[in-house]
């Protein structure tokens, strides 16, 4: 098929790139292989949590932190994208979220400190309103709430960890556990199953009553796993606060990420409703290059490869998870140009033994030009009309500095701008 600009990807990077093109009056087609990487990777938009991988001191003002990071590391993906792309891209995203019916809060000028499911404070920048009450810069006591049989959130663990590290004043951290109406705690159920249940007002009110009875002291805020509705987040959260009589905040859980799915599902629908063509279940691969330009890329459709012919291409894959690169025993290559991105004597070289250290595999990607074009081994663009955003860029390792959302927005926005000019 023919398209104006083809965006390949399934995560925030691809969504922001697509929206940028749409708002500029262009006609993007969004191509993604299956489920969005928002399912695995996102709950909040983190812009810069830590200035480097070793510090434990969170960044207070993300925008200042990024400015400094760019000054110190001219090759960092943030530097390639530019601070303006982060700022303009974030405004675009926040405006889009509002238009799509979300309630989100936060600015690039300030990080919030929110408890994770294990009770550690984590800096985040732009977050759903349903998480705001968890801000650890506030004073109210916290009661972590868990559910019998639900294995992805252990309130006792969150409470004991937070009580050890949260040291700013006379605060109380407790945990409670309630059983869920109509759910057999012997069955395995996920956050998704719970989130669907919470959209049922009868179920929700019943749980609210049980929690109200279980939480002993007034004025506490309730920290619960993010299961307050799979689609209608703001309504469920607001109602649940009224019904429990406490401020309530959601805490992201291990995948499946309800917060990520909520975001993806709504934004995808919004793009579709506003006329953006999408092709899913068709992983893109094989770029056909002639005269220095990509003529078409190929989709693995049923039965045969399907060519997509566009003026420009934004390769916005987030991670190995959604196919930014493919690893064999020794070689790591990209799926489009089959460039050798990394080579290892043993696969063990790609990982650090400690899960909590930066992982070498995270930084694998294309070297890119000033305009985010992927470069060959001699430093020449592989194709003048192809631009890389997100995890396909070499040195793109947002995990250790808690910058996944910000880097996605900045590179997605910038790559879209470049694609329009190509």
């Amino acid at each position, binding site marked *: 098929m023919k398209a104006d600009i083809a965006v390949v990807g399934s995560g925030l990077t691809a969504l922001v790139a697509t929206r940028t093109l749409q708002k500029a009056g262009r006609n993007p087609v969004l191509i993604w292989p299956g489920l969005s990487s928002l399912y695995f990777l996102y709950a909040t938009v983190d812009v810069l949590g830590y200035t480097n991988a070793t510090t434990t001191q969170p960044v207070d003002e993300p925008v200042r932190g990024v400015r400094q990071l760019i000054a110190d590391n001219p090759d960092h993906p943030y530097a390639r994208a530019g601070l303006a792309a982060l700022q303009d891209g974030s405004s675009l995203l926040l405006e889009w979220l509002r238009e799509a019916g979300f309630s989100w809060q936060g600015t690039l000028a300030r990080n919030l400190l929110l408890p994770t499911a294990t009770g550690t404070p984590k800096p985040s920048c732009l977050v759903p309103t349903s998480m705001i009450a968890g801000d650890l810069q506030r004073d109210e006591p916290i009661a972590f709430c868990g559910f019998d049989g639900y294995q992805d959130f252990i309130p006792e663990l969150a409470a004991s960890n937070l009580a050890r590290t949260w040291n700013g004043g006379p605060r109380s951290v407790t945990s409670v556990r309630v059983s869920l109406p109509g759910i057999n705690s012997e069955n395995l159920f996920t956050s998704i199953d719970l989130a669907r249940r919470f959209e049922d007002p009868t179920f929700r009110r019943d749980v609210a009553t049980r929690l109200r009875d279980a939480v002993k002291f007034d004025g506490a805020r309730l920290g619960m796993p993010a299961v307050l509705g799979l689609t209608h987040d703001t309504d469920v959260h607001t109602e649940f606060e009224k019904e429990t009589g406490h401020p309530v905040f959601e805490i992201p859980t291990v995948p499946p990420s309800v917060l990520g*799915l909520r975001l993806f599902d709504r934004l995808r*629908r919004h793009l579709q409703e506003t006329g953006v063509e999408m*092709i899913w*279940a068709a992983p893109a691969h094989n770029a056909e290059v002639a005269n220095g330009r990509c003529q078409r890329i190929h989709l693995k*459709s049923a039965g045969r490869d399907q060519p997509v012919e566009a003026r420009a291409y934004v390769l916005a894959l987030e991670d190995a998870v959604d196919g930014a690169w493919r*690893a*064999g025993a*020794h070689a790591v290559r990209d799926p489009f140009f089959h460039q050798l991105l990394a080579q290892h004597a043993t696969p063990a070289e790609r990982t650090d033994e400690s899960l909590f250290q930066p992982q070498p595999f995270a930084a694998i990607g294309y070297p890119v030009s000033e305009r985010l074009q992927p470069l060959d081994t001699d430093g020449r663009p592989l194709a003048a009309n192809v631009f890389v955003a997100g995890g396909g860029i070499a040195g793109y390792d947002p995990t250790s500095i808690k910058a996944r959302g910000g880097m996605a927005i900045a590179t997605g926005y910038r790559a879209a701008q470049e694609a329009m000019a190509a």
Partner: protein
Amino acid sequence: MIRDDLETFADTVEEEQSVEACTKCTACNTVCPVARTTEIFRGPKSLGPESERYRDPHEATVTAGLDLCSGCKLCEVTCPSQVSIQEYIRRAQNKGAREKGRTLRDWLLGHTRLLSRFGSLTAPLANFGNRNPLFRILMERVVGIHRKRPLPKYQWLTFESWFKRHLRSRSPLPALPRERGRGKRTVAYFYGCWVDFNERRLGQQVVAVLERNGIEVIVPRQQCCGIPAVVNSNTDLARKYGVENVRRLNALPAGVDIIASSTSCGLMLKHDYAHLLEIPGAEQVGSRVYDICEYLWMLYEAGELDIDFQPVDTRVLYHAPCHLKSHGIGYPAMRLLRLIPGVRVEEVDEGCCGISGTYGVKVEKYDLSMKIGSRLFEAVKAAGSDSVLADCETCRMQVEHGAGSRSAHPIDILAKAYGYR
């Protein structure tokens, strides 16, 4: 399998479509229409790749729960590692049925073509029986077909017979300039059992639209595509059908494209013959197969589609069938419909309709099937539009039944825009 090869790109587990490519991420369970509707279903992850690791070809198959899988393939569409989840389920189901035997009901539903041929030959009687409440109670008791499920109406004149007459007659189809043989393209139409025995008109519309564009239509002899057998624990039978179809379709002259107007038949030809059923020569067939709307859109992009459309003043909803999503071609019907003046088309994006071919017909699955489709029905009712378009025949049956709306294949609008009444 990991190959010790620095220069080969395909040295990844994903390339092998292996069960080991499953990272147990649970994405499939999240989108599974059955798992989201009932707790008794353990979901595609558990019944597909997880169980597969424990399946032993020399031991009896554990079949519990396998029949709850409706075969919509959304799990495969969603899997970030492209694991063929369905194929594991279908193969295990077939092996289990070989060991334990099949019910009369599943045997009958797997032999759709046979059943339809019989229904067509006895059309007035069969249609009377299918609408007769007493007969339906009997049918539910004896065979296990739910009494409330409206069954498709059979037609005495098959599409195949009509097409033979059409070829013999020199007169053009109504309101269309007949330009048979003028163009340089010839297509072979895989019409499928539905068009042959139940909706001849759709086949006529497909022929009309293609001939209007100067394309010569030929109709090769064909067997059931096999999907009803696949989803009724009988991949053995499906393979038999598939082998026959592959032989006939591979005998077509080079340069003849194959089109299908049913998304599920098309998907069988394109993908499942080669992968699930492992039929030799199936890849050559698959690479020539196009969904009818996909084909017309390709013509449009090549500047070959006649876009001299009459305005069709209508507001319609479009429901994308699950199996269309598996084609990985986007929604070509939506793109085509937007070319026609007067047509206002909106997608009703509420997921699976719930019928999944013969699944929602079964007495023990009917309620579940209606519950799966309830979001779609509500959305259709709320939208209050003329009708719902869907490329799949059983989706249309389900929407008509569940939402009480009219339904049609998108080609219906296209044929109207060309003046075919």
